[in-house]
C-alpha cells in the first residue's frame, strides 16, 4: 500500500532512490523491485544489521544499507532521483 501511495507523487520505476529511516528494510524490499538502485539509511546499527540479513536472504543486489542519519548525509556519487522519508522525519 505504501509504495502505491508513494507512486502518486513519484515514479519509482528504474530510479535511484534514497530511503531515509529504512528500519529493518520492510519498505526497502518493495522499493528494490522497482528501482534501479536503493541506498537505505537508518541511525540504528541493530536495525541495519537486520536489514542486511534481509538483503542477503532475499538477494537484493541493487540495495545498499548504511548506518547514517539524514542530517549527516554527505552527497557522494550520482544524485538521487527520488528521496523518501518513511515514518522518520
Amino acid at each position, binding site marked *: 500500500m505504501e509504495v502505491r*501511495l508513494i507512486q502518486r507523487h513519484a515514479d519509482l520505476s528504474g530510479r535511484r532512490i*534514497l530511503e531515509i529511516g529504512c528500519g529493518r528494510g520492510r519498505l526497502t524490499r518493495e522499493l528494490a523491485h522497482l528501482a534501479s538502485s536503493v541506498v537505505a539509511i537508518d541511525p540504528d546499527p541493530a536495525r541495519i544489521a537486520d536489514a542486511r540479513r534481509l538483503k542477503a536472504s532475499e538477494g537484493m543486489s541493487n540495495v545498499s544499507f548504511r548506518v547514517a542519519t539524514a542530517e549527516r*548525509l554527505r*552527497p557522494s556519487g550520482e*544524485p538521487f532521483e527520488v*528521496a*523518501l*522519508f518513511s515514518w522518520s522525519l
Partner: protein
Amino acid sequence: MVHALERARQALLPNSPLVLIQPHQTKRPLVAVTSGRRRQLVAALVNSTFQPRLDAAVSAIRTVVDRGLFSRLGTSHQQFRVQLVSPAALRRYVNLAPTPSRFPAGGRQRLNDLWRSRTDGARIEVTESFTVFGLRRLGE
C-alpha cells in the same frame, strides 16, 4: 528536521521528488473491539513523547516550502486497519514502535471489559492514520 530536509535536498537531482510518510498529525491510533459488523470503540491511543516531534516535522515541511527549497506536489491522508487476536497481541503491536503509544486513563480497563464480554470471532482492531507529503526539489 529542517536540516534533514536540506540534506536530502542536496542529495537529490533538481526537480526530483521527495516523499514523506508520517503519522497523521492529529488523528491518533484508534482501538476498537470488533465482531462481525459490530464495532465497539475502546479509545484513541496517546503518545506525549511523539506528538511534539510530529508537530515539528509538519512545521519543518512548511519551512522548507516557505524558503523556496521545495514546492508541494500534494498531500494525502490515508488509513489502514490492523486486526489483532488478543490484548497480548495488541501489546506486542504497540511496542513495535520506537516510542510506543499508550492508553489514556481508563482505556485499558475498557478494553479488558469489552474483551471479557466478547463473542466468538472477536478481534481487536487498530486504525492507523497517516499522511503522505509529496515535495519537489527546487533550484540548482
